[in-house]
């Protein structure tokens, strides 16, 4: 134990930055995730339809996606620290303001616009660039911890909000969540979050601090041949399209399941208890899976892992088609759970490795926007398929096929040619090759 404390005391400062970002994702995702807990209560209190209350959630989803390129761009210009802190404050105040909402339209404004818009400023398009600035050798691991923060936040804060609602009322629940953000998250960010290691006189990966213990030695080449100064330039090379297209599929396959799972379970006569436990299992595997994949991605090619993750998820979708529903449920929870979040750190890390960190915020924001658009379209498409065919099977088949495509697209990324991880000292900067 003493050894652990000693190690923690001498740890590279970047890990404290990751810890602060972990908690930011933890509360940010948790607070937004808890919205669904209050729907029934608001329905009764406001006399509003579920559809109207759902408008705030739908709008919030789009606002979150749309705001990410904007906040990402601001991060590229001003650094992650001011953007994340200045997004976190209105999000926390918005949480408290939720307690004073008196009708569905105020709900749409406060949650759909304010909280959801500013939550885009604390997500991967802002946190990702900060992580990439601090880490290179362990970038995948660090990114995965950030992603796991959101996952674990959902696991802890959603039940926290729900039981606050049971014990007190929804107004108290939102005030407490807003206070958690402002009283716990904000000081952590204020004292620990630094945009880049140079702000503290350090170097990426902490090379300067323990020069005698370098493993691997400090890289002399820190940018790849496609490193860019303008985000627009990324679209003239293949990896940006490959990563974006694959991420659209990620959006398609996660959003569709997220929204249509309950209807599918009911249609298949799966008991509520079984469905609940299966999803609890998926959430648990999800957090472990993302950290494992992140760790592995620092040891091997990220695009290989990314491709495998999409193919694994394809198998999970296939289970809906070929297995009896009761077994498919568990197969999906176990197989799908491992791949659910793993795409996030892999995609962001790979983007940073290929295009460098100067425009990573904007690029991550744009890729996330593609994800959200794909997700929104898929939610609609799955609903239409169910209404027309009275079964989800054609939609699941569509998901399976798109995942296979995403797997192949990811595997076709020429990481060894374009990633800074594989550059050797003396390598010259190449120009993007058309259609490569």
């Amino acid at each position: 134990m003493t050894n652990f404390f000693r190690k923690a005391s001498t740890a590279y400062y970047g890990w404290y930055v990751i810890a602060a970002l972990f908690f930011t994702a933890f509360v940010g995702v948790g607070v937004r995730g808890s919205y669904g807990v209050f729907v029934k209560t608001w329905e009764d209190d406001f006399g509003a339809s579920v559809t109207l209350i759902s408008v705030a959630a739908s709008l919030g989803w789009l606002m979150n996606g749309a705001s990410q390129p904007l906040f990402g761009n601001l991060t590229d210009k001003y650094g992650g620290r001011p953007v994340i802190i200045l997004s976190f404050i209105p999000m926390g105040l918005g949480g408290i303001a939720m307690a004073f909402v008196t009708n569905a339209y105020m709900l749409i404004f406060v949650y759909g616009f304010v909280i959801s818009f500013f939550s885009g400023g604390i997500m991967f398009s802002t946190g990702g660039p900060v992580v990439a600035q601090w880490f290179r050798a362990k970038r995948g691991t660090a990114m995965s911890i950030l992603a796991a923060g959101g996952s674990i936040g959902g696991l802890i804060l959603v039940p926290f909000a729900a039981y606050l609602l049971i014990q007190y009322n929804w107004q108290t629940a939102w005030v407490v969540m807003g206070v958690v953000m402002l009283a716990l998250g904000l000081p952590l960010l204020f004292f620990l979050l630094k945009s880049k290691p140079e702000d503290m006189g350090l170097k990426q990966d902490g090379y300067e601090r323990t020069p005698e213990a370098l493993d691997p030695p400090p890289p002399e080449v820190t940018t790849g041949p496609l490193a860019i100064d303008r985000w627009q330039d990324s679209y003239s090379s293949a990896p940006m399209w490959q990563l974006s297209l694959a991420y659209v599929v990620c959006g398609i396959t996660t959003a569709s399941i997220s929204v249509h799972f309950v209807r599918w379970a009911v249609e298949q006569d799966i008991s509520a208890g079984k469905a609940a436990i299966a999803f609890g299992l998926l959430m648990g595997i999800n957090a472990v899976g993302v950290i494992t994949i992140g760790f592995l991605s620092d040891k091997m090619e990220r695009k290989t892992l990314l491709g495998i993750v999409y193919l694994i998820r394809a198998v999970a979708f296939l289970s809906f088609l070929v297995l009896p529903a009761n077994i498919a449920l568990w197969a999906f929870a176990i197989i799908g759970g491992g791949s659910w979040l793993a795409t996030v750190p892999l995609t962001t890390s790979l983007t940073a490795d290929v295009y460098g960190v100067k425009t990573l915020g904007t690029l991550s924001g744009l890729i996330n926007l593609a994800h959200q658009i794909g997700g929104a379209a898929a939610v609609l498409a799955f609903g239409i398929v169910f209404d027309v065919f009275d079964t989800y099977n054609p939609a699941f088949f569509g998901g399976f096929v798109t995942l296979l495509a995403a797997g192949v697209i990811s595997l076709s990324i020429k990481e060894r040619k374009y990633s800074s991880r594989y550059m050797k000292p003396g390598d010259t900067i190449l120009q993007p090759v058309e259609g490569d």
Partner: protein
Amino acid sequence: MAAPLAPVAHHSESVDPTLWKWIQHQIDVTTGLSAITIVIILGIIIVAIPVTVIIFAIRSKKHAQSMGRAAESDDRPH
């Protein structure tokens, strides 16, 4: 429900209310704890994360300062 009230946290979607009702029932049946007990347990976890990080950060800062002082005294001519 035709809106993204999702059951799993992937890019911060909101939890599906129906699924949450199922999960909450399972938590109640499995743990048998009262609402206030669960609030306290989860509240402690939520507070513990930033407090632990801050404590370690302060220790780290102190350690770095003491190392700096030691290095300074080594450099000083005797």
